[in-house]
């Protein structure tokens, strides 16, 4: 009834305006084609086909034909000829898979690429409910490892492309719509159209000094076709993926008693049984936490102009109480062809977010360590004193007394103008700006829980900071076909300038505890402290870049590129570096001799070589700087006089870190490209690795950044995809896998050892990047048993004053002594041998089921949180299996409060970090056009999603992927990283 009414109205309007409406279905002969562009040539009228391949279009006066175009298919133009329904069958174009790929400073046909580039499209990005683009990329591209290092609300993921060359910041470079950025936390994944992951040097060398860790190019959505309004919303709940098994109260009391006896004290708990289960501190800090997201976007466009406007609100409460993240972003992309030779465009992203912060590390570590006998709060409501026995704080009190809120305002945008002239030349000038303004306000009330957990005067601290980063790029590009020859190229000059500054102050004795008093003026001015200085970087880059692509008949491809970079981070003699590359490709399946129509529908071979660099070190590292905060007190009336000294060494000979990468790749399509396979073998050699390597303390100052090592990564990236089925059942299975071998080739000064990774109580160095081993390999003793009796004490050599019940360490060189110098060995590495991603989707009519599985294999983790014992901390439940007398245990030693068995890194604390995780499952239903038409919608989809539902891992901690500040510390679990969450959400996507 309603439908006919609409039809009637349409007819009426038709009559009035002399317009006609045409509908129909576009197929490839068997399946409907989704997203086919349908245009009325000579007008601005156009649309795209929906999920069922259907389109409906109002043809304005003067329109007499329709043009159907779709990537990979031949464009067809048909006369309307008075028809109201036109069904079209598009034929695949002779050039199969004419996928367009965004590369550095340009776009290319995927077939013409000589480099290794992984591409992810928008549909694949939004199936996981997350505000983080990184998390939505996990498992999607071979060679791209995404580490969900933290489950903190709003936290971004860690990106690693093709192993780890550098020891510092190994993040790839991010380029968003041409704007080069350090982080992309402001991006809403739903705004993203496509992501290109540039992996080899042929692709990355155009980014020169910053391409060594790979480049991720993000293109946000531009409007196309008829105006559209889209609403995406989901809501859900999160909980911690798992808890760490620690002792309950009576078990704890039993073990502490035992430790007391073992260490020569009287046992302190007369009746351990009486304490029962006691407090589960993890239950006390974790919570079920809601998550919400809503995005509203408007888009539209034609050949002359397009726009995309979106607004997003996201709220995530933390699975640790007291933490939360709220974000509001809005984005406007606008493109306009002003003249036939001039196009201007602008992209603007405005964001505002707030974070309620807690001291995550300390809260987690104390919840893990706190004795289960003490209580979060006693019967009178006072916080329990967890330091009385166990010498930890009370994590619940710590959360309660924290009032720390940070706000960030961020504007990221760029504008550019393209000027086309002569035949095939385009000059582009692009100016981008990233402006960040941070505010934080932290109030701590006066409180007393215990001697080690108290604040005697309340205090307020505020901080305001800004950072701005501008980029100006001028490029001249050229593209032209001469018969079978295709040539394109780009030349450019770019500048980037980054500066940031912070200012802050603090006072004590705030006049009230209410948030309305959280201002400096409400506190005692005599207690004022303040600070102001450079923060967030002071650096600049000047670059000259160029690239030429030549293609002969679509069969033979060559790319040559280079970039010269000058960086402010190096001293006068070492500022400039040059980074060249060359890539070649051969589209074998386009050769005349190739048997068209055979099972192999596509075959391409390619190879590349090139160099890239890395300058990501702090500022001014080439000159020793004098700090003036080392004052001393003097005088009969004491006064603090200024003291100035050097606290960090410097290195005037600092130079670029340089990565030389060679890559050979093959792309294979079978059965008319139902099956696609892409394989890349690479060798990535990094010399002059920049790192602030630890130096002996006897040198008296913090280490300088040095060019410390040569590191080799060689590996294999493999991506395969199978799609099959037709109407109504279709499915797609993709697998990608990466194998990396990481090895230190040489060390600065021809040394053999390269220590790092402080852990445990005494800060012993737990990693040694020895020549021949992986960077950041765990290094310690091999635990081969537990001294069972006095006889064994004589039988095996000892480390220090060992007793029965202590760990037997292997005397590796068999000299009858166990020594630090000669008996420590490599115990593992945090770098996985293999990472795996499997994704699949199945659809039957409107029902869709998709999943992602990710995993890593062949890596280890150091459970260092067990080793750091400054008091009678709780134990993990493996200590229930401890040695209590001959024959009781040959793996877990006797229990003590602390001491060598804990403090010394041995294989006892190294665990397997392999895991496989069902990262995502989504079940969705797309309603039929019958319904959506009635609701005047283009499409309507509802879904439920589960993230991190099931993980198979041996590791006893929350998550075996431990990412710390440097590679030396990776894989060392100090128990301070915000655990990841298991999330269940339900959502709806509506397009009008």
């Amino acid at each position, binding site marked *: 009834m309603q439908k006919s009414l609409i039809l009637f109205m349409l007819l009426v309007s038709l009559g009035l305006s002399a317009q006609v409406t045409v509908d129909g279905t576009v197929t490839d002969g068997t399946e409907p084609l989704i997203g086919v562009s349908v245009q009325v040539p000579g007008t601005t009228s156009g649309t795209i086909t929906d999920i069922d391949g259907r389109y409906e279009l109002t043809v304005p006066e003067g329109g007499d034909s329709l043009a159907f175009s779709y990537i990979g298919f031949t464009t067809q133009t048909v006369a309307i000829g008075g028809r109201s329904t036109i069904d079209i069958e598009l034929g695949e174009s002779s050039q199969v898979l004419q996928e367009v790929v965004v590369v550095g400073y340009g776009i290319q046909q995927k077939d013409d690429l000589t480099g290794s580039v992984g591409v992810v499209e928008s549909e694949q990005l939004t199936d996981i409910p997350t505000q983080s683009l990184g998390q939505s990329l996990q498992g999607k591209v071979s060679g791209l490892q995404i580490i969900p290092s933290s489950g903190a609300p709003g936290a971004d993921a860690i990106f690693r492309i093709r192993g780890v060359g550098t020891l510092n910041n190994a993040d790839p470079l991010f380029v968003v719509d041409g704007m080069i950025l350090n982080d992309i936390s402001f991006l809403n994944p739903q705004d993203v159209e496509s992501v290109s992951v540039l992996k080899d040097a042929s692709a990355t060398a155009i980014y020169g000094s910053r391409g060594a860790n790979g480049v991720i190019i993000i293109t946000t959505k531009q409007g196309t076709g008829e105006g559209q309004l889209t609403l995406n919303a989901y809501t859900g709940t999160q909980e911690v993926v798992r808890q760490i098994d620690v002792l309950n109260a009576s078990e704890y009391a039993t073990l502490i008693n035992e430790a007391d006896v073992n260490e020569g004290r009287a046992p302190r708990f007369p009746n351990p049984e009486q304490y029962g289960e006691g407090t589960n501190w993890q239950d006390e800090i974790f919570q079920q936490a809601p998550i919400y997201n809503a995005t509203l976007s408007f888009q539209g466009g034609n050949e002359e102009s397009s726009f995309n406007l979106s607004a997003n609100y996201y709220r995530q409460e933390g699975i640790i109480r007291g933490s939360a993240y709220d974000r509001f972003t809005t984005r406007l992309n606008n493109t306009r062809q002003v003249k036939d030779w001039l196009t201007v465009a602008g992209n603007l992203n405005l964001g505002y977010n707030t974070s309620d912060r807690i001291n995550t590390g300390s809260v987690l570590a104390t919840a893990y360590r706190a004795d289960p006998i003490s209580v979060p709060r006693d019967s009178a409501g006072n916080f329990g004193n967890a330091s009385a026995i166990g010498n930890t704080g009370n994590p619940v009190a710590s959360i309660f007394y924290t009032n720390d809120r940070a706000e960030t305002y961020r504007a990221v945008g760029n504008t550019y103008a393209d000027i086309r002239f002569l035949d095939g030349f385009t000059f582009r000038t692009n100016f981008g700006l990233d402006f960040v303004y941070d505010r934080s306000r932290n109030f701590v009330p006066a409180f007393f829980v215990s001697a080690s957990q108290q604040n005697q005067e309340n205090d307020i601290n505020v901080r305001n900071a800004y950072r701005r980063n501008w980029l100006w790029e*001028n490029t001249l590009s050229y593209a032209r076909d001469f018969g079978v020859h295709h040539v394109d190229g780009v030349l450019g000059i770019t500048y980037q300038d980054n500066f940031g500054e912070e200012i802050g102050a603090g006072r004590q004795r705030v006049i009230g505890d209410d948030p309305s008093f959280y201002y400096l003026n409400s506190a005692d001015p005599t207690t004022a402290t303040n600070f102001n200085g450079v923060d967030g970087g002071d650096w600049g880059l000047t670059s000259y870049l160029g690239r030429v692509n030549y293609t002969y008949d679509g069969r033979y491809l060559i790319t040559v590129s280079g970039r010269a970079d000058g960086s402010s981070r190096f001293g006068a003699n070492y500022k400039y570096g040059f980074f060249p590359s060359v890539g070649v490709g051969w589209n074998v399946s386009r050769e005349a001799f190739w048997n068209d129509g055979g099972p192999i529908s596509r075959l391409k071979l390619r190879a590349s070589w090139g160099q890239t660099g890395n300058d990501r070190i702090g500022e001014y590292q080439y000159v020793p*700087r004098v700090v003036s905060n080392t004052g001393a007190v003097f005088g009969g009336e004491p006064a603090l006089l200024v003291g100035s000294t050097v606290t960090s060494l410097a290195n005037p000979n600092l130079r670029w870190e340089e990565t030389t990468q060679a890559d050979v790749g093959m792309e294979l399509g079978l059965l008319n490209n139902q099956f696609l396979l892409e394989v890349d073998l690479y060798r990535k050699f990094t010399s002059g690795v920049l790192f602030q390597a630890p130096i002996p303390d006897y040198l008296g100052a913090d280490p300088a950044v040095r060019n410390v090592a040569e590191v080799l990564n060689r590996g294999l990236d493999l991506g395969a995809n199978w799609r099959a089925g037709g109407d109504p059942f279709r499915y797609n299975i993709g697998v990608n896998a990466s194998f990396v071998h990481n090895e230190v080739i040489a060390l600065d000064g021809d040394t053999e050892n390269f220590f790092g990774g*402080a852990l445990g109580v*005494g800060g012993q160095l737990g990693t040694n990047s020895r020549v021949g081993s992986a960077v950041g390999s765990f290094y310690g003793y091999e635990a081969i048993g537990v001294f069972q009796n006095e006889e064994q004490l004589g039988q095996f050599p000892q480390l220090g004053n060992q007793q029965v019940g202590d760990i037997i360490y292997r005397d590796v060189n068999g000299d009858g002594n166990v020594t630090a110098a000669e008996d420590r060995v490599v115990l593992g590495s945090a770098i996985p041998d293999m990472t795996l991603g499997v994704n699949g989707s199945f659809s039957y009519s409107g029902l869709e089921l998709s999943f992602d599985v990710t995993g890593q294999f062949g890596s280890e983790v150091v459970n260092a949180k067990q080793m750091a014992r400054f008091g009678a901390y709780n134990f993990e439940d493996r200590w229930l299996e401890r040695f209590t007398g001959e024959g009781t245990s040959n793996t877990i030693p006797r229990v003590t409060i602390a001491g060598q068995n804990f403090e010394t890194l041995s294989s006892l604390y190294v665990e397997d970090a392999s895991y496989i995780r069902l990262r995502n499952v989504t079940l969705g239903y797309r309603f039929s056009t019958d319904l959506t038409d009635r609701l005047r919608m283009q499409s309507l989809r509802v879904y439920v999603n589960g993230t991190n539902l099931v993980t198979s891992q041996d590791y006893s901690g929350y998550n075996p992927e431990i990412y710390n500040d440097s590679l030396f510390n990776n894989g060392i679990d100090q128990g301070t990283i915000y655990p990841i969450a298991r999330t269940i959400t339900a959502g709806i996507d509506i397009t009008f």
Partner: protein
Amino acid sequence: MQTMKSLYQCLGLAVLLSASACSDVIDRTPQGQYTLENFFQNEEQAVQSVNAVYNQLRQWSTHVFSFIGMTDIVSDDSDKGSLVSDGFFLEEVDRFTHTATNVAPGTVWEGYYTGVFRANLAITRIPEVPEMDEDLRQRLIGEASFLRAYYYFNLVRWFGGVPLILDPFPQELQIARAPVDEVYAQIESDLRTAIESLPASYSGTDIGRVTSGTARGMLAKAALTRMDYEQAATRALEVINSGEYALYPDYAGIFTDAGENSSESLFEVQAAAFEIGGAGSQYNEVQGVRGTPNLGWGFNRPSDDLVSSFERGDPRREATILYVGEILPDGSGIVEGDPGIEGERFNQKAWVPDHPGGNGNGPGNIRILRYADVLLIAAEALNEIGRPEEALTYLNMVRERARGGANVLPDVTTTDQAELRQAVWRERRSELALEQHRWFDLVRTNRSFEVMKPLRPNFTENKNELFPIPQTEIDLSEGALVQNPGYN
């Protein structure tokens, strides 16, 4: 065509503009800081560089937690204290079960070498400051030399031979341990430099800087440690005869606010509690009363052995130890017992009254070298070189002040060398208790085994006299450092 031409001009202009406007993008000047290229240009900067050497004295890693652990707690004077399991690495030190990865040796190693670095920087750069008062230049070099000597003195006493680094930026990063003799030769040389270039006293805003007297006293102590009794006696007598120093009349008063920088003070680490912080130390906090009143963490518990070591009626026992139930020295409260602490008592010498900035902002100067110490050095050295009468004079000066007019602590009269030696040693223990001298006294007089073994069965002779070189340092030195015997 005209349009095209002007377009080219525009493009050309844009390229030129961008090339010239941005040429300074990569030329940066460090913001808000001097660099070594433009510092050390005037007198004020020279002074600041030496102030930074003093700054390190006040730090956690130099004179606070681990320092107390490796001087008092390790000795027979005190136990770890505090809650049973708190600060467990110091319990290991107390029981001699510590290994090369213990926190304490690594902490002081870092703290003292940071001081050495800053001294080296000042000593090597101040001579090149273009224009400054020559006396001031020499004085500053003297101050930095003294402090370098002091830092090395504690290092060599804890660890034996250590890397002897005099250049702030050595070419080679792997540096072996210098022999003990060489370290002491440098200490003596630096102290002589200080003696020659430092004034006998300061006034006004310079009070608290080291003097020639400080350097003489420290040299006397170093010489005594080396059993160079002639030099120890000479240097101690120079201090005594300088007339700059006198015993503070009230023993307990030395450790109060009024007793700071008193007539008895040769060297104190200066600290002050300002509202805005930044000038205090945690020396007081770690030893402060734990629980009620809420003054600190309660470490460095006076041992039973110390309590019973005082002579009958020695008022110094009361002045040294703060008992549960005792009224605080300023009358502001009573120490209440904490059931979690065994045999609870505290170091009263580290007690400070209520002050701004919380417990962690302690105002108490850390007394490093007192005149009484110098008198006892003189007594010990003179006795060793056959001048017992003079030795007795100085020993009894200390006893006289200690007795505070009461009829206790009679003068020592023996001139028997062995007896007098024991008398001086006992006096040192009572006079200097919990002022972080005891362990060094035990080791230098070769008594650590006989004293500690009965109390701490784990004590291993020819091992525990020295602390282990931190394993981290051995690792990072690429094996240039060799571990002390017994620590593998």
